[in-house]
C-alpha cells in the first residue's frame, strides 16, 4: 500500500526559494491504458473486423442506391402519417413539458426544504429517464393498443424526464436574492417563485422544450416501427415489402420537414437565449 501511494504521489520539486512542492502525476497514461483495454475487450465481444469492412463496404451503398430516385408518386400517401408524426410530437412534448414544471419545482432543493420529497422526485425522474423511449413505446402499445396515442404517451414521458431534470438543475442555480426578499415581505412561496424565479428560468425552459421537440420529431419516426403510429408505420411497411424507392421518398420528406422545424425552432431559441442573458 505504501509503495502504491508513493507511485501516485508524483514528483517532488524544490523551488529556488527552498520551498518543496509536489507536482501531481498525470493520470493520462492510466486512463489511456484503461480505455485501450476496454477497446480491445469491445473489439473481441462485438467481432469488430476492419478487413471485412474494407472488403464489403460497397454493400452499404446498395440499399442506399435503391432508394434513388425516390418514388415521387408515393408522396401523396406520405402526408397523412407525416402530419400525424408532427402532431404526436407536438402534443407529447407540450404535455410532458407542462407536467415537468411542478415536479422540477419539488425536485429543486433550494425551493423545497423537505429532503425526502426532493429525493423521491429526483428518483422518479431518473428512473423515467433510464428506461429507453423505445421500451416505454412498446409498453404503451401493449396498454393502449397500436396507434398514435401510444407514441404520444412515450414522447410525453421522455420529454417529462428530460425537461424535468434540466429544469430542476436550472432552478437550483438561480439567484435566490429576489426570492428571499419576496418571502421576507410576507408573500407566499408560490407567489415568490412566480415573481422571482420564473423570470430567471423561463427562457431556458422554453429553449429546452423546443430543443426536445426537434429531437422528438426525429425520434417519432423510430417509434412507429414498434407500431406506435406516425411515419414509422409506413416506413416499416415499405421496408418489409422492399419498396426502397418509397422508403427514399419517406426519408426525403422527413428530412425536409425536420429541416423546416429545426430552422424555425433555432430562430426562436436564439431569441429566448438572448432574453435569458
Amino acid at each position, binding site marked *: 500500500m505504501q509503495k502504491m501511494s508513493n507511485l501516485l504521489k508524483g514528483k517532488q520539486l524544490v523551488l529556488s526559494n527552498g520551498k518543496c512542492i509536489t507536482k501531481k502525476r498525470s493520470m493520462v497514461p492510466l486512463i489511456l491504458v484503461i480505455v485501450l483495454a*476496454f*477497446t480491445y*475487450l*469491445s*473489439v473481441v*465481444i*462485438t*467481432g*469488430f*473486423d476492419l478487413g*471485412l*469492412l474494407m472488403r*464489403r*463496404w460497397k454493400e*452499404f451503398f*446498395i*440499399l*442506399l442506391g435503391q432508394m434513388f430516385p425516390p418514388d415521387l408518386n408515393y408522396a401523396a400517401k406520405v402526408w397523412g402519417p407525416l402530419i*400525424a408524426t*408532427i*402532431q*404526436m410530437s*407536438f*402534443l407529447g412534448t*407540450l404535455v410532458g413539458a407542462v407536467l415537468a414544471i411542478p415536479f422540477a419545482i419539488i425536485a429543486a432543493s433550494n425551493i423545497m426544504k423537505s429532503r425526502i420529497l426532493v429525493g423521491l422526485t429526483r428518483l422518479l425522474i*431518473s*428512473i423515467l*429517464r*433510464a*428506461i*429507453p*423511449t*423505445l*421500451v416505454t413505446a*412498446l*409498453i404503451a402499445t*401493449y*396498454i*393502449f*393498443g397500436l*396507434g*398514435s*396515442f*401510444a407514441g*404520444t404517451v412515450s414522447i410525453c414521458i421522455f420529454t417529462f424526464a428530460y425537461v424535468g431534470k434540466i429544469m430542476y438543475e436550472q432552478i437550483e442555480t438561480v439567484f435566490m436574492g429576489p426570492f428571499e426578499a419576496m418571502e421576507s415581505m410576507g408573500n407566499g412561496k408560490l407567489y415568490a417563485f412566480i415573481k422571482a424565479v420564473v423570470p430567471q428560468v423561463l427562457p431556458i425552459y422554453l429553449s429546452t422544450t423546443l430543443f426536445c421537440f426537434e429531437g422528438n420529431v*426525429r425520434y417519432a*419516426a*423510430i417509434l412507429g*416501427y*414498434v407500431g406506435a403510429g406516425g411515419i*414509422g408505420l409506413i*416506413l416499416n411497411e415499405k*421496408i418489409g415489402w422492399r419498396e426502397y424507392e418509397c*422508403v427514399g421518398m419517406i*426519408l426525403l420528406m*422527413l*428530412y425536409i420537414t*425536420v*429541416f423546416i422545424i*429545426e430552422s424555425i425552432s433555432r430562430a426562436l431559441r436564439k431569441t429566448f437565449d438572448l432574453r435569458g442573458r
Partner: protein
Amino acid sequence: MEDRIAVQLNKYPSKALEKMSTFVLIVALVIWSMQVGAIGAIKEDGLNIAKGIITGILQPDGALLFNLTMQGVPYLLLETVCIAFLGTIVGGMLAVPLAFLSASNVVPKGVAFIVRMLIMAIRTIPAFVYGLMFIRVTGPGPFAGLLSMSFISIGMLCKLYKEAIEDMDTHILESFDALGCTTFEKIRYGILPQLLPSFLSTLIYRFDMNIRDAAILGLVAAGGIGAPLIFAMSSYRWHEAGAIIIGLAVLIIIIEFFSTKLRNKLVG
C-alpha cells in the same frame, strides 16, 4: 410615489397583443394536434398487461438477472456497453473531419452550409434503417449494431464539435505564429488544449445516450439487449422483461452518474 411608479410602468411597451397571439397560436396547435386521436381508450386487456409489467418489474426473473452465461443479463449488458463504446469511438472519429468542414471559421460559408446539410441527412435516417444497411455489410450481430450506432452518433457529435471549433480563440495561433512555432507545435499547444476537453466531454455524453438508444438495435437483430427484451415482451414473459429492464435501468443510472462526474471535471 405610487403615481410615479404607475407612470414608469406605463412607459414600458404593452406586450398584451404579443402574449395573446402566442396563446391563441398554441391553443390552435393543440386543438389541431388532438386530431391524431390523442385520447385513446385503454385496450380491454390493457390493464392486465399493465399489471403484468409492474409485477414483472417488481419480481424480476432472478435466474436470468444473475445468469453469467451468454444468455444472462450481465453478458447482454456488457455486449450493449461494448457496442455503445466502440460505436461512440468510431462515430467520434468520423465526426471530426465533418465538424471541421462545417465550421464557418474554418471553411468558406458555402462549403460549411453544404456539409451541414449532409450532416442533417445523416441524422435524419433512423437507426433501424442504418441497421438494415450494415447487416448487408457484416451480417446480423453486434458488429452491424456498432456501425449503425456510430452513424447515428455523427449528427449530434458534429454539432457539438462544431460549436467548440467556432468558439476557439484564434488569437493564440497568431501569437504562436509570431513566436515562430511550427505547424505541429501550433496544433499541439494551440488547438488541442482548447478543443480536447470539450470533444471528450461530448463523447462521454454521447456514450451515455448511445446506451439508452442501444435497445433500438434489437429491432433489426443488430446485437445488444434490445432483441431479448422485445422477444420477452412480445411473448408476455413479464418476469424476464422485468429482469432485463431493471438491469438496463441500473446500468444507465450508474453510467450517467460517472459520466456527469467526468464531464464536470473536464469542462467545469
